[in-house]
């Protein structure tokens, strides 16, 4: 083991194996749980992605930043704008798909993060926290500055790419737009609930549609039209699900249906429906080849979020456990000593900022897809504070801590919600209880167990082994 670790190449292989195994296990889990839990899984993966960046920034580099929520907004907006406006733009000979949008989201995060990081490298402690606090509070102001481009206060509804082909605007995120920041968790719940309902509709529709295939063959086109308009009232994913099933079971019938819809659509709803059908070839294969023949949006979102989280985790593992991780820690613990051995303290701080911005932007792009919406309310100070809470509770300087923090951020509101349902608490209490707990827990952890959950466990293990007391790292 020791000889294995001494070669960086081998360490990378080990990390790849670990991440690969976790990825596979998570996909297996995702495909075998209720879609509702899949939507939680998607959120956990999204938070974890953002918090790997917080581990590096806050934990290893020692910079308290509240800007990561804003950087998530950057990623989300870039994703939304590129995926909506460049759907038909060929990209270096390839057709545009969601992965390009993700790449651009990441680049946007790196750009903005680099600018803030350049400022941040000159700042210490409270100054940086205050400046980034201003950025977080300023997000709505900035989006309102460009109402045409960014949709102002209402944000943008996302066209969500589907692996089955095409983009479709979801209706589910509609309510989120009006919510103020500060309780992102609540926003997510309503959204998850809404998509859950869609799923039920999709299942109902399937049965109707199967009955309808026969009349179609008899050229009963008009009644089919009526059926389809009803579908339009629901969401476009219903249509796509049906496409999936039909192509797998009887290809001919599915093909006929597709043509019929094309005939019908221009007369009725060219704008909305056209996107769903004409865009079939745009998204290509999407992120992941469907493990499941039935297309379930929560599962797809979760597998997409897991894919991003695993790729980011792999990068983070290599950075944190490699030379760069030691550089960050050295500058955090003693900038002068680090400078003496030839490390540039400001360079180290900027690099931590840029890496965490990249991760935050990718997480933001994932979050925007999960919500199928991007707006200032869900990406304000509340989100930045939740990231800070998660990383502190899980363990500031540990990637595992980031994952535990992400779990806590998703699980605790659910726990409180369940308890409140049992005990019949008023809404005012239920909505605020998670944040009250977070605030008190953060203070308690900082005072009593600065290493968070992972740090505390590590210190217990070390104690059991008879070694020294725990440190932050």
């Amino acid at each position, binding site marked *: 083991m020791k000889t294995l670790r001494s070669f960086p190449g081998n360490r990378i292989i080990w990390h790849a194996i670990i991440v690969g195994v976790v990825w596979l296990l998570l996909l297996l889990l995702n495909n075998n749980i209720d879609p509702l839990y899949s939507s939680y899984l998607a959120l956990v993966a999204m938070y974890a992605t953002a918090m790997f960046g917080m581990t590096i920034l806050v934990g290893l580099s020692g910079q308290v930043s509240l800007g990561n929520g804003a950087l998530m907004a950057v990623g989300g907006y870039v994703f939304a704008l590129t995926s909506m406006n460049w759907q038909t733009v060929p990209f270096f000979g390839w057709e545009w798909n969601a992965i390009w949008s993700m790449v651009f989201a990441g680049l946007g995060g790196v750009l903005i993060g680099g600018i803030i990081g350049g400022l941040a490298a000159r700042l210490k402690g409270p100054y940086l926290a*205050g400046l980034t606090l201003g950025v977080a509070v300023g997000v709505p102001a900035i989006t309102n500055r460009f109402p045409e481009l960014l949709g102002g206060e209402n944000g943008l509804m996302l066209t969500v790419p589907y692996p089955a082909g095409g983009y479709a605007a979801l209706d589910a995120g509609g309510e989120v737009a009006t919510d103020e920041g500060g309780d992102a968790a609540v926003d997510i719940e309503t959204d998850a609930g809404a998509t859950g309902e869609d799923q039920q509709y999709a299942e109902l529709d399937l049965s109707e549609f199967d009955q309808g295939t026969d009349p179609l063959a008899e050229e009963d086109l008009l009644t089919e039209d009526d059926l389809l308009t009803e579908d339009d009232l629901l969401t476009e994913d219903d249509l796509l699900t049906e496409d999936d099933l039909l192509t797998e079971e009887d290809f001919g019938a599915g093909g006929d249906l597709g043509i019929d819809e094309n005939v019908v659509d221009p007369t009725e709803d060219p704008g909305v429906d056209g996107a769903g059908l004409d865009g079939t070839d745009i998204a290509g294969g999407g992120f992941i080849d469907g493990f499941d023949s039935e297309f379930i949006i929560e599962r797809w979102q979760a597998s997409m979020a897991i894919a991003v989280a695993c790729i980011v985790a792999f990068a983070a593992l290599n950075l944190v456990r490699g030379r760069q991780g030691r550089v960050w820690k050295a500058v955090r613990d003693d900038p002068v000593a680090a400078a003496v051995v030839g490390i540039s303290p400001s360079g180290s701080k900027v690099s931590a900022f840029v890496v965490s911005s990249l991760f935050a932007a990718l997480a933001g792009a994932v979050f925007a897809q999960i919500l199928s919406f991007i707006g200032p309310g869900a990406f304000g100070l509340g989100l930045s504070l939740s990231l800070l809470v998660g990383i502190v509770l899980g363990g500031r300087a540990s990637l595992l801590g980031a994952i535990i923090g992400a779990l806590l951020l998703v699980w605790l509101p659910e726990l409180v919600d369940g308890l409140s349902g049992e005990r019949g608490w008023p809404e*005012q*209490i239920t*909505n605020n209880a998670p944040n*009250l707990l977070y*605030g008190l827990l953060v203070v308690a952890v900082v005072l009593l167990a600065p290493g968070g959950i992972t740090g505390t466990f590590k210190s217990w293990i070390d104690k059991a082994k008879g070694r020294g007391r725990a440190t932050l790292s």
Partner: protein
Amino acid sequence: MTNFVDYLLGGFSNGAVIALMALAIVLVWRSTRMVNFAQVGQAMFTTYVALTIQQSTGSWILALVVAMAAGLVLGIVVFFLVIRPVKNSDSTGAIIATFGVLIALQAGAGMIWGGDPQGFLTPVDNSGIEFAGRIWPISLYDVLVLVVTAALVIGLTLLFTKTNLGLSMRAAAFNPEVARLSGVRVNRMLITGWAIAGATGAVGGVLIAPVSTISPNSFDILLVFAFTAAVIGGLDSLIGAVTFGIGTGLVISLVSGYSDSGNAPIVALILLALNLLLKPDGVFGHHGARSV
């Protein structure tokens, strides 16, 4: 030109409140060398207390006094429960802890008083004063805000320059070791600093509440403005906090007047970034107040 004068005049009372919040941040910085990001959260909480008092008794003065007392107590409570235990550990932890307090206070206020914005009645008329044939952008209430702020600033100045307590506090802030050797009870001075800061912030909260509405998150933006003013003023200068607090208020009023009030946070952010880049010690700051 008339517009310019009007916008400028309209910014004074807002600036006075920002100055009070900045003062609170500076008072805490002077006593414990940390920025209390929960300061405005504490003010929000005590303003809700004042609102409750005003709604039940109808007295604005009583509400203000109770809010000050509550701010004093809350400052001491936060200091004892959070700041003193964390002070000697890492500085990152101290910053995070104050954010923890902020989150808890906002959630607590939401629990007790609900999340909907609530109005706060003004004790005096809040419409523009008519004088010399035109309506000026300053109301009787704005005058009251300025008077209360001025009284508080003068009181604090007298406290720090003319009393033994003020001298001890300055000594404890300037050099705790030497102060302790000279018989100053440094720890008690730190508590006093936090308590006075809490009361000052509470006054600011009660003064701004009728103009903006009050909700658990409505003071977030005030935190940014106050932090900006405090940092530009040098973080340990009382006069700097007051000057740039009012200055920030005027700038915001001008920005809101000529463009849109939504741009105010962006302007504050630009001011803060420029200041941190060009004059990181602040205009009134002593060299070395901020080490890199």
